[in-house]
């Protein structure tokens, strides 16, 4: 199990989190249909580091961006998104 450094709660067990999708696959509301299709149905799926959106569902329930290596599971960063992250 991974230990995820939640920006609000500190390091927490992965079982409290749910993976949503990658950052590059978020479809902007005004995306043209070709871009929306690509973002909705394809992934970079790298055998390396990617930025992923996770949610601390069974904790503070906030969304965050986790930068993680997909072979070693090494987490190199975790930052908040959403209104909480605004200055």
């Amino acid at each position, binding site marked *: *199990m991974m230990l995820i450094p939640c920006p609000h709660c500190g390091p927490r067990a992965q079982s409290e989190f749910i*993976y949503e999708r990658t950052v590059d696959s978020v479809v902007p509301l005004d995306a043209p249909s070709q871009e929306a299709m690509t973002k909705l149905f394809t992934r970079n799926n790298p055998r390396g580091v990617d930025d*992923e959106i996770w949610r601390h569902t069974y904790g503070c329930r906030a969304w965050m961006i986790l930068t993680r290596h997909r072979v070693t599971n090494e987490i190199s960063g975790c930052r908040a998104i959403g209104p909480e992250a605004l200055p």
Partner: protein
Amino acid sequence: MSRYSAFSLLRGALTGHRHWQPAWRDPEPKSHYDIIIIGGGGHGLATAYYLAKVHGLKNIAVLEKGWIGGGNTGRNTTIVRSNYRLEPLHNLFEFGLKLWHGLSDELNYNVMFSPRGAMFLGHSDADMVKLAERGDAMRCDGIDADLLTRDQVAKLEPLLDMSRDARFPIQGGLIQRRGGTARHDAVAWGYARGADSLGVDIIQKCEVTGFVRDGDFVVGVETTRGRIGAGRVGICVAGHSGHVAGLAGLKLPVESQTLQAMVTEGVKPMINSVIMSQSLHCYISQSDKGGVVFGGDPDNWPSYAQRGHPMVMEGAVAQGLALVPALSRLRMVRTWSGVTDMSFDGAPIIGETPVRNLFLNGGWCYGGFKATPASGWTYAHTLATGKPHALNAPFSLDRFERGATIDETGSGPMPNSR
């Protein structure tokens, strides 16, 4: 290649078994092949075998970065079945199931196919309606499916918890009696031996590191053992589809996840069929050696690590114990995992890509093993003719943008919602 038979075994016994030969050669790669298949798993080897056998092609190579049978072919739970509701899926898998029934004879290699029955459990009224609908859809296409009552399920599998206070009460089931299990390593080895004897070069420890392009066309591959030219190239690398296709600049509708499986110590026969529950997502069978094999959900986040997380394993074990409480007395001896390429509708992708002469066979999610013969057959047809076979035409890569997805579970376009 010498033929395996009871007679050859007997003759070997008299001469101290010194007659055994390697089952396939270890050739150096040539500078050019008509068809190169990337990935020496069951699907890639079956493709090579049918290309040589059915289409009569000679100049074929299978490139494997590791060794034969070291990837997902040796990491699945060996279940073979064709009990899908949607027509394109059950037609493809049924074609495969028919090939399974004659596979040991076809390959002259005992793949230990054991049609002991593959049974889905129904835990509620809604489950039973769903199972009946699935069975009806199958029978409309001539595929065997029998709806079982609660008593019939209890008779077939006496160790299931059928009590009133069971954690997951069982109302009935749907059985496909021609389904079962096979020995997964033997499938890879049998196809490898068969393909090799028909002249296919199986090149192990040869990782593809790039594609050689000539405009829109792929004309070869760069590998750790040098550049190899090719007429057509077929990707067949399961969990690493996204990575290999990425080398050609393609972005696929797949996300790689880890799927775990585990096996207990060997015991006398206790599980007669393949017990599956789709409401829970747990599947249990017993190997011929006696170990109880089971698996559950994939780890629902992207991963290329060929190891899983105990948290997910615990979920699968908890389901297994609730269904068959007697399992609690067994020790788990091995757990392992493979990298699966989860597609966006849960169905495979077999066909052309936007790059000319480059073909793709992937996106099998966690259900590729049972399709090995059908996948090889249809992919061989596609590679030989440049056009899809009728069975794999619906599984084209462009079906997502056309809105023609094949979504058996109806769970929408997310690989982690399968």
